[in-house]
């Protein structure tokens, strides 16, 4: 059975001044995987996601989503940024933030109506944040903020989800809740790509992994490539991790 490629990255290179941040990245992400991107600090993980999404301009390379250039496929892709990327003191409620997930489908000027509000409420329920919907976002905990961001992405009803360290700094309950949602997404045939900070949980949570350190070290199913060789190559030290086979 031929697998569809959800995200195809070719020769992607990003540099600040003379320093390469991403070098000649070739990546094929098949549809329906739950993939972790791992690597040391400064490896370019966030940069990779942002470049694929068009937030950062590469100096070379291309990105296609299901075979088409990314800019034609925006509606299929949802982004969950790092918690720290916004000012949580902004005057708005949790519901309002989730509602923003419907703005893409509305286009310019059109205001969200009953249909969009319903979608937002359903997304909030999926992340168990419905009771917080009228809460000012500055009054949310870290885990709750992360769930709001996730709900916003779910409201887009996309086919591919990019997430930047969604489990960083969240409580254990939230971590389990989020992973369960990601697994549900995969079951529904969606493709989920996650920058993940915790090597220990990679084999447990993900079925695919990409090792990144400015260059792509390896990519593939966790059971095949999550081994000491690749870990050492990526992290540069003799890295022994207990892998549950």
């Amino acid at each position: 059975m031929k697998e569809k490629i959800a995200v195809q990255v070719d020769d992607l290179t990003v540099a600040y001044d003379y320093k390469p941040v991403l070098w000649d990245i070739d990546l094929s992400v098949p549809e329906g995987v739950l993939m972790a991107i791992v690597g040391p600090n400064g490896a370019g993980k966030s940069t990779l996601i942002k470049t694929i999404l068009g937030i950062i301009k590469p100096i070379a390379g291309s990105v296609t989503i299901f075979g088409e250039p990314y800019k034609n496929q925006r509606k299929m892709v949802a982004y969950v940024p790092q918690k720290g990327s916004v000012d949580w003191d902004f005057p708005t409620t949790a519901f309002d933030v989730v509602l923003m997930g419907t703005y893409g489908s509305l286009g310019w000027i059109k205001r969200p109506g009953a249909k969009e509000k319903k979608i937002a409420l359903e997304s909030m329920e999926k992340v168990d944040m419905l009771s917080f919907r009228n809460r000012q976002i500055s009054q949310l905990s870290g885990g709750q903020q992360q769930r709001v961001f996730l709900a916003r992405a779910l409201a887009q009803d996309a086919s591919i989800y990019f997430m930047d360290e969604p489990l960083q700094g969240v409580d254990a309950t939230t971590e389990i809740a989020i992973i369960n949602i990601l697994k549900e997404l995969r079951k529904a045939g969606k493709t989920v790509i996650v920058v993940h900070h915790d090597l220990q949980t990679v084999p447990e949570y993900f079925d695919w992994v990409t090792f990144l350190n400015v260059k792509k070290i390896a990519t593939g199913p966790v059971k095949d490539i999550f081994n000491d060789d690749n870990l050492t190559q990526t992290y540069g030290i003799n890295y022994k991790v207990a892998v549950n086979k």
Partner: protein
Amino acid sequence: MSITEYFDLLWHDYTLRTITLGTAVLGAVCGMLGSFAVLRKESLLGDAISHAALPGIALAFLITGAKDSGTLLLGALVSGLIGTYWIRGITSKTHLKSDTALGLILSTFFGFGMLLLTFIQKQPNANQAGLDKYLFGQAATLVESDVRLMVIVTGISLFVVLLFWKEFKILLFDPEYTKTIGFNTKFIDVLVTFLIVLAIVLGLQTVGVVLMSAILLAPAAAARQWTNRLGTMIFLAGLFGAFSGVLGTAVSASQDNLSTGPVIVLIASVFVLFSLIFSPGRGLLFREIRFRQNRKDLQLMKTLQFMYDIAIDHENISHPHAIRILNNFQGYTKGSLKKLENEGWIKIQGQDWAMTQRGFNKAAEMYNQQPVHE
């Protein structure tokens, strides 16, 4: 002068009416658009732009020889826009951060503008007096055509803000995410910045180059204290700005020697101070009151918990105990006993206290972090 005298004067005096309307409209539009600058953490952008407008005013006079506000403000607009463009250019193309870029443009343009002003003043031609009114504003020189222009610009700004409301909201909150869902963030960004520059240029006549940033920031800062909703904040900022304008004009009209611009700014600052202290949600006064209330509640809860620990050791939780065993417990006061009884958590019988079922349950669930439901 009394209130009735003021309204009487307002009704009959065309000049006062014009100036009041002008400063009100200006206050409203600057308050409204200033909210955008404040929320984008570009608070000093207004300051930089207003200072950058000065050379434009001077050059407009030097080139055309005309001193009407239309020409000069056009010059201000051009030079303000150039300054803004260069600020953005410096931040995006060099390693300098935005605060450095703002400072550089502000001081360089302003310095150049002052240079031109002193050059103009030294000219033998007697026609050059009065340009320096743009430094601190001279609201007394507002005429009906100026006010009409302000009203039109305010109307257009309001229309644009309402039209692109959700786009502004999302761009202010999360610009990167906005890009990913397909909006041209550059367009929205340019639109907001252009409106801010326009408001600043219009305000130069009233509050002047030096004080402009206050009328942009103070109403928004004050408004933020009273609400957690974006729409309400912007509306309140407009309201506070308008009131600052009206009150400032009234005060300066009643005292002959006071210049309107600074008075308006000071009144706007009073709004901010008042809001910082007295606003119910975020105000310092209410925070202090809530803090003390919480501390009192905590004493009460600790006493209840202490009683719970005693009661739980007995088969009958409502077994009476002597009050004096509480004497060594820190936080216990006679007042707390009364309060605990009022809440129905304990019963007092003579020299003894006994826990009720309600009190027992309350203490038991205290350490259970249940999520708060709306």
